[in-house]
């Protein structure tokens, strides 16, 4: 495939907590595997029984549409028994701590736990307390590894490579785990990264991640092959980061005139859910020639199937 490495045989990690922990071999192993699942997902019979008899628990402490359904579908297509915990009806609401919940679930012998949690590092804590593999489906603002992997797969699918591409990541970087995971992954795969955000939404010392920092979107988009937009995470904003959505759209919303600065064949990506008219122009989001947003969702299932298979067996 598009990433040249020594032939990877086995994943180096027990858990998938973040891109930070993965080697390039690990990444290539996952992406190669995911690639084979794209076809499976498009065929009539989508079921393959590689995880028959295995138990997968989805533990989502934060609301999620695409990630949770994507993981659920991925597990089911691989033949695993999938249970999605409903947090609002669980003992967590009664004040049970994460560790106690983990112990309880662990006693039921799951083979894999998929966790999303509002606190950074929650999956690390969980992984120390259970015997099975833990897959991070997003922890606080730290990492969202499967999102970055599906983004990489989408880019490779379209551009046939990542090395040498110029990729802009734009928007609420501060609160974004997607941005962090993508920075680690795309950097590892040899892309040049332009990070675009108002200073109030830029993590401190971001340049130490090995990226270019821009507060002017037009400059940041110049000659980019990929424009990755992020959702403005208003629910994580405790105080005034921005004056208004209107002004944000004016300066950081992706509009046709700003997109002009990128390469003519630039692709638009967004991890969803989108705030149309705040970070992205609604026509652009739906432009089938430019936007690969739906493809990201589609390949997300393939990537999660690959991760489940690799970490579960």
């Amino acid at each position, binding site marked *: 495939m598009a990433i040249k490495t020594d032939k990877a045989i086995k994943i180096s990690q027990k858990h998938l907590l973040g891109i*930070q922990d993965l080697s390039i071999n690990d990444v290539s192993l996952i992406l190669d595997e995911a690639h084979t699942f794209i076809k499976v997902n498009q065929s009539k019979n989508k079921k393959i029984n590689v995880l028959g008899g295995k138990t997968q628990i989805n533990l989502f402490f934060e609301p999620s549409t695409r990630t949770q359904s994507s993981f659920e579908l991925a597990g089911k297509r691989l033949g695993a028994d999938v249970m999605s915990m409903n947090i609002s009806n669980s003992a967590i609401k009664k004040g049970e*701590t*994460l*560790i106690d919940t983990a112990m309880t679930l662990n006693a039921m012998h799951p083979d894999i736990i998929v966790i999303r*949690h509002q*606190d*950074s*590092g*929650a999956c*690390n*804590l969980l992984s120390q307390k259970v015997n099975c593999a833990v897959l991070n489906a997003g*922890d*606080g*603002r*730290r*990492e969202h590894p499967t999102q970055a992997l599906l983004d990489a797969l989408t880019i490779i699918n379209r551009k046939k490579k990542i090395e040498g591409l110029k990729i802009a990541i734009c928007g609420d970087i501060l609160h974004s*785990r997607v941005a*962090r995971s993508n920075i680690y992954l795309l950097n590892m795969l040899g892309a040049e990264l332009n990070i675009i955000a108002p200073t109030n939404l830029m*993590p*401190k*010392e*971001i340049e*130490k*991640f090995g990226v270019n920092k821009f507060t002017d979107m037009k400059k940041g988009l110049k000659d980019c092959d990929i424009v990755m937009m992020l959702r403005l995470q208003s629910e994580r904003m*405790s*105080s005034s980061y921005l004056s208004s959505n209107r002004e944000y759209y004016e300066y950081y919303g992706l509009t046709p005139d700003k997109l002009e600065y990128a390469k003519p064949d630039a692709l638009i990506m967004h991890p969803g859910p989108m705030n149309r008219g705040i970070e992205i122009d609604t026509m652009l989001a739906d432009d089938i020639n430019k936007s690969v947003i739906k493809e990201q969702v589609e390949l997300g299932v393939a990537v999660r199937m690959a991760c489940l298979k690799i970490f579960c067996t």
Partner: protein
Amino acid sequence: MKKQYFINANIVDPHNSLNEIGGLIIDESGKIEAIGKKVNTNNLPAREKPIDLKGKYVFPGLVDMRVFVGEPGYEYKENFRTLSNAALSGGVTSVVTMPNTDPIIDNVSIVDFLKRRGRDKSKINVFPCASLTKNIEGTNMTEFGLLQSKGIIAFTDGIKTIQNPRLMSRIMNSAKDLGCLIMQHAEDFELAKNGMINSGIIASKLGLSGIPEIAERILIERDLTLLEKIKCRYHISQLSSQKSIEVIKQRKEIVKFTSGVSINNLSLNENDIGDFKTFLKLSPPLRREEDRLALVQGLKDELIDVIVSDHKPEDEESKRLTFSQAATGASGIETLLSLSLELYHNESLKLETIIKALTSNPAKILKVNKGNLSIGNEADFCIVDIDKPWIVKKEKLVSKSKNTSIENKKLQGRVTNTFVKGIELFRL
């Protein structure tokens, strides 16, 4: 009590500028009768068998200016008995307790309770603080005068800061009128809001909100500006950054104040947090290595007066949580001296500088006759094997709470005996 004779010890008593090999005589009432090189086998009564401390050190009992005790309200974390045992095992014989209990130490009647419990259950000297404001809400002042007359040593909101500058100036006025010592935990609440660790690359990587150093600096600058107008006894509880040291250096020439630093900030930096170690969630946060080095230099330059343990016992349950949910603070009174000695062994600081910051300097700020080995004083002291290697093990800690910031750390130097009023209360 029998008279006690010690000889051949390396005695370090900064208060009396003593740093020599000599002996110590404790009289029948537990007071120091004689000390120094004059006390040796040649001039002791022949029938007495002195204890030979060859190779060991004698320091005044440590005075720890920032200690949290769980009593009242959080006895399951630490009570006066467990605190005093933990202190003794670390050579600490006097502690200044923070008012952050439940209820808060903010009125005269609770001080009576505190003094009684401290006296009955604790074997060390307890100097309680009261809060600056009622229920540490930062709105109404407590009764400084009445509380002081009941035996309150100083006033502080402990883990909280007076945010309102007008209230702070009024507090300073009252403190000036009444001669009270006020101690500020310098942190601008708005700038530090939701913050958990130092703002910077580590916080960005871990996805945690940061506490910028400017949150500390801006508060210090405000207070020292007020202090130019209102000259009261003012102490900054803990410094954590290089920039704060710079501010202090400038202001020292203009106005009189004192400051402290936690042994955690002197020994560790933000990299030690690693993979979300909740035991290193501290306030002020651990910062960059440059900041740590600046703090060490600050002690060397006598810009910082005091080293504290910032002993904050937290039970396991408060720490077995995600980083953002976990309680702040580390237990540290029993490792205060050993960890401080690391700075001597790695040649960062002179031994006298360290001992001064742990004994005579805090005593001077508090205006108590402790932390020295003057003739006629109560014999509060510790004997230390300064080279003894040991490893910090959670389960071996004396404190009721095991939340040490330095689990499994290899240390060099350990207290072997601690005496309060001439009585040996701890032996390793």
